[in-house]
């Protein structure tokens, strides 16, 4: 593969810099919390700086090609190499992970959840960042797997230590589900390795040779990967860990989980499963589509039944990831584009919604929808930001959510050649019903929490400027949220910003299908 840039150190530095920060933090005494936070934040910002440097050096005319490629020996006995690169699909997600980490850290500056221990909390976020960024740039299956798993433990501790009341149950459930998926995925990777002649784990090599595997073997191998990725997405019926994990996780954990971790699964489908095993992808596509639309409807119905705001947002994630998976299952460039856009948009919007939920919880000490009311009166800015995000989430044209959802539905009208049109058109209709339900539960949520008069129990708490009672958006929140809100608006008004770098890369992924 030709090297398009000489700056091939950029990806490795951008990925491993956070670990250096963790190392520095180890030597700071636990009592010096400000120093710890400063080191962590500086590391995250520096990492983002490297990411932005990557962005400026990225050759947008060649977005379909892997850039900043670096390859060196790693485990030569296992035929695995340290192989990284980035293209139009990876770049937005890679940057998203960096941006989210910085924003979450800003938000955490004075929001370290109980039971404290700032040092460990910030260190875990940095380790998470390495895992997330690494997954999006890995070009070798073993490297991918290592990064994919690297995020598990930090997230397990984040939920389990800093989470809500049932945190231990939720964290264990999260871990066991994901680990079960990864174990089968690893077996599938190995089978793939041996079926292609046991020569290399590099993804380009496997894409070249994977199509030659017999149809039956492909279907089995795809099945193993499917479980691994589908748990992470999560797709119905592997989704049950998600509401628990989201509800119990601290705000920061929920945001990272929703904004980036869920994308590791969909990214795996787009980057690994589908291009390497095109024949199996066609066989599996209708089933993936079916599970996707079940997820859309099930998630929406789940939302309507929730009494807890955070749990509601968690279920809405299941529905939204259903749209992403529907787009992927059509195996068309239109659908894939929508899916990748949907990943980024969902990251921004749902991340934002979880931030809001966290701030609401901090002020009202509850997220029970029936006890919340009249937020617009008590804290108008917070209320309107929530309104904005709710609109974005339900797919209002002009905001980012629309460009992930609407094209995904449209793409199901005309799936890739060889897939049953009737089936996918039925999916399309069901998904369209899902959008109506989404509007229903999101607007209902907004109406119940933001409109009306504040409930009696909280009405006396307002106008407290000392931060303990109910107050409007504070400075740290503005700093953390403004970039997300701006991005939601900008991508909504000018989606081409993203589509033009995604599209060439998507063409590359689909080249296995002859166009």
């Amino acid at each position, binding site marked *: 593969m030709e090297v398009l840039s000489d700056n091939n150190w950029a990806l490795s530095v951008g990925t491993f810099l956070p670990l250096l920060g963790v190392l520095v933090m180890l030597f700071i005494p636990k009592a010096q919390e400000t120093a710890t936070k400063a080191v962590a934040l500086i590391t995250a910002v520096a990492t983002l700086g490297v990411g932005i440097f990557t962005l400026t050096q990225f050759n947008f005319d060649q977005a379909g090609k892997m850039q900043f490629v670096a390859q060196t020996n790693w485990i030569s*006995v*296992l035929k695995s190499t340290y192989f990284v690169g980035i293209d139009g699909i990876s770049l937005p997600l890679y940057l998203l992970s960096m941006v989210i980490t910085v924003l979450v850290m800003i938000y955490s500056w004075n929001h370290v959840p109980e039971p404290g221990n700032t040092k*460990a909390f910030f260190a875990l976020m940095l380790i998470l960042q390495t895992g997330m960024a690494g997954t999006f740039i890995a070009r070798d299956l*073993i490297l991918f797997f290592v990064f994919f798993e690297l995020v598990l*433990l930090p997230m397990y501790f984040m939920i*389990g230590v800093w989470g809500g009341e049932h945190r231990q149950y939720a964290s264990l459930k999260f871990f066991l589900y994901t680990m079960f998926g990864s*174990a089968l995925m690893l077996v599938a990777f190995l089978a793939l390795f041996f079926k292609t002649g046991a020569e290399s784990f590099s993804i380009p090599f496997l894409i070249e040779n994977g199509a030659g595997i017999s149809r039956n073997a492909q279907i089995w191998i795809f099945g193993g990967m499917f479980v691994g990725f589908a748990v992470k997405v999560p797709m119905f019926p592997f989704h049950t860990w998600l509401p628990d994990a989201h509800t119990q996780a601290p705000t920061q954990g929920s945001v990272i989980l929703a904004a980036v971790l869920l994308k590791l699964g969909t990214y795996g489908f787009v980057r690994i499963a589908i291009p390497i095993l095109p024949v199996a992808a066609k066989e599996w596509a209708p089933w993936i589509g079916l599970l996707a639309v079940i997820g859309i409807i099930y998630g929406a119905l789940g939302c309507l039944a929730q009494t807890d705001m955070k749990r509601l947002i968690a279920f809405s994630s299941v529905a939204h990831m259903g749209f992403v998976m529907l787009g992927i299952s059509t195996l068309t460039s239109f659908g894939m584009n929508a899916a990748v856009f949907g990943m980024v948009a969902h990251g921004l919007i749902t991340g934002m919604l979880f931030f809001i939920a966290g701030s609401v919880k901090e002020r009202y000490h509850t997220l029970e929808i029936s006890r919340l009311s009249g937020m617009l009166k008590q804290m108008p800015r917070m209320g309107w930001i929530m309104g904005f995000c709710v609109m974005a989430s339900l797919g209002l044209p002009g905001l980012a959510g629309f460009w992930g959802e609407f094209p995904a539905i449209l793409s199901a009208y005309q799936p890739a050649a060889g897939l049953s049109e009737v089936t996918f058109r039925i999916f399309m209709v069901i998904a369209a019903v899902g959008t109506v339900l989404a509007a229903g539960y999101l607007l209902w949520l907004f109406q119940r929490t933001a409109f009306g008069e504040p409930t009696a129990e909280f009405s006396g708490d307002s106008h407290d400027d000392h931060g303990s009672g109910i107050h409007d958006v504070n400075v740290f929140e503005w700093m953390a949220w403004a970039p997300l809100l701006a991005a939601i608006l900008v991508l909504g008004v000018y989606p081409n910003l993203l589509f033009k770098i995604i599209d060439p890369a998507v063409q590359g992924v689909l080249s296995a299908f002859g166009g």
Partner: protein
Amino acid sequence: MLAALFSVLAAAANWVSPTVDYHALAPEIIVACGIVLVLLLDLFTSENNKWMLGPVTSFTLLGAFIPVLTLALSDAGTRSLFDDRYVVDNFSLTMKGLFVLAGYLVVLLSSDYLREGDFYEGEYWVLMLSSLLGMVMMASSRDLVSIFVSLEFLSIPAYMMAAWRKRDLRSNEAGVKYFLLGVFASALMLYGMSLLYGISNSTLLTDIGTYVSGDMSAIRAVAVLFVVVGFAFKISAVPFHTWAPDTYEGAPTPVTAFLSVASKAAGFVALLTVVYVGFPNASEVWQPVFWILAALTMTVGNVMALRQTNIVRMLAFSSISQGGFILMPLAIAGEGDSAGAALRAVVTYLLVYAATNLGVFAVVIAVARKTRSGSISSYGGLFSYAPGLAVIMTIFMASLAGIPPLGGWIGKFGSFQALVSAGTTWGYALAVIGAVNTVIAFGYYGNMMREMWMRPVPDGDTTPVVIPSALMVALGLTTFATLLLGILPGLVLHFGDLANLAGAFGG
């Protein structure tokens, strides 16, 4: 003096003294000298100077590591002694290095434990060195007699060490149980060996390899089966594992570390030698046996470990289940070209497992110094008052659970790779069972993490844990090894490339 002795013997029995490659035997000779030295020092030093015995033992072991290194670096290749009955090749050197270094770590774990517990010290070191000498010899043995002698050499001191807390009933039970079942296993194995000798008229494994092949008559199958089952006791494979939990729990913790790592590894070494050199052509007999043993061992070990409330008992079942993972590749070792991959997987797993498990016991010993308790709940809130220990223990637990990028992952990965490489349905099926077990295993490893990170301190006592320097060194070394093996596994996988052992029978 030795030469004189040899000449006397030669004259007496018309026997020609073999040429001895002293370089090849140097590790054994150094350990043997160490045994004598410690024994003499123990006899002639006053009670006040007994502290020096521990350092002498550790220097002996480090000294024995030097010839292992020089042998590994020399260009001479495989060295065969005594009519090929004693072979020093890459495989045996790798395992000797493992035994010697594991022994060194156990010394570090033991020294403060012995002093503070007011145990016999000199005798302990002598027995430990003897047991290690047996293991080092085992790595080179290619003959039924030398294998059996090595096995007893390494086992008998271990029986005594298990009962070292002699006023504690549990420790006595541990020793007796270990002894009775160990002897039972030896008897089974001897029976199998006698049949093998009857079949092939030779005790040399390579000779046996030529006879145990082709049409598997019942007698051959029984012979192979008995030998394999004998070693299955040693590596505590289910259903021959019943001694392990009680012995591990009752024995002093450093001895448990020794048993669960060094002694177990020695069992695997013997098993590998016998299978690869002695029975390469009998794979239709031992493959199904290993398949069943591996599947049972992983599953039963895991399920039992889930229910434990005592940390050492939990680690005992965890070690049983890890043994199942190590056994996995042997279930396909006879398929096509898989022998090399399987051997590499087992050796790599043993190395990684040794580093991690010794580290776990180092943490257990360190924490028990403060809590004086063996229950898992005594680890509650460890992270709040001993964050360093908690993080290290988390690394070890994650490594045992097989989470990348830690050492244990590369061990599991190698096993899965070997299984899948065979490309048989049985291989795939065992891989899936292994995958499911990996998830189950997280139940108890994760539970430990949960105790340390998420639970409150049980009695509110948050005085920091005082770690003696020897234990600190052990913790540092094992943590470093666990991380390094995970991130740069190429370092050990290289040792796993052991064509010589498989090549001993010409293919």
